[in-house]
């Protein structure tokens, strides 16, 4: 039986209070199956979730309820980010450090 996870939305609340996500280009490192990513996916102009686990990424892709052209999930590790220098406004290390 799966638990009820963070019903008060504490993680999202603290993230939103910590930085302005609206209209920003955001990278989430360690997105897993995208549970957290989906919670704030409507805010950034572009959002990329990366994780080394392919099975989790497949779940994340499948659970994109509505097509979100600005939301991407890719396989990568924090130690080698496949992006050009200066390409993100915000990087979120989600339990991945």
């Amino acid at each position, binding site marked *: *039986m*799966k*638990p*009820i*996870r*963070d*019903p*008060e939305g*504490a*993680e999202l609340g*603290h*993230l939103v209070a*910590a*930085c302005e996500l609206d209209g920003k280009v955001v*990278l989430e*490192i360690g997105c897993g199956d995208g549970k957290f990513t989906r919670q704030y996916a409507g805010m950034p102009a572009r959002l990329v979730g990366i994780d080394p686990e392919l099975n989790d990424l497949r779940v994340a892709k499948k659970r994109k309820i509505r097509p979100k052209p600005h939301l991407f999930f890719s396989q990568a*590790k*924090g*130690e*080698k*980010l496949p*992006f*050009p*220098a*200066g*390409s*993100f*406004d*915000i*990087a*979120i*290390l*989600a*339990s*991945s*450090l």
Partner: protein
Amino acid sequence: MVHALKEVHRILVPQGIMIDVRPLCVDVPLEFVHAGGSESAGLMDLSPDIESDIAADKAVDCVIKESLYHESGLEYFDFVFYWKTLKGMEEHIEENWKAYMVIPEQVRQRARILYHQRRPQTRIRIGWRMKLGIYEKL
């Protein structure tokens, strides 16, 4: 870990923000929340992964000392999980958190006693202590 933080530094724009949000290896209570209040069965042991926790903090300290980032904020909060059954909680810990969390035998026994009291609307609660660090690229 330091290498990952330097990679993040590379891909951020000037004055870009890095958010480090993660659970801490501090022991947290296993609680039974019911209509009349809540009761603790004792503390869960979160020591198994403490070396990773310390290493992550050291990595952040290292990149701050190298003047790659400035710490602009630090917050703590509880990330809560609820289960309806004790079996459900034990299975979840066994399948997902075995490397991070141990249920001490005394806590397990106390949890069984509390669970079998079957008070109305009982839910089992574990709140991971989370750290959220905000760092600005220099």
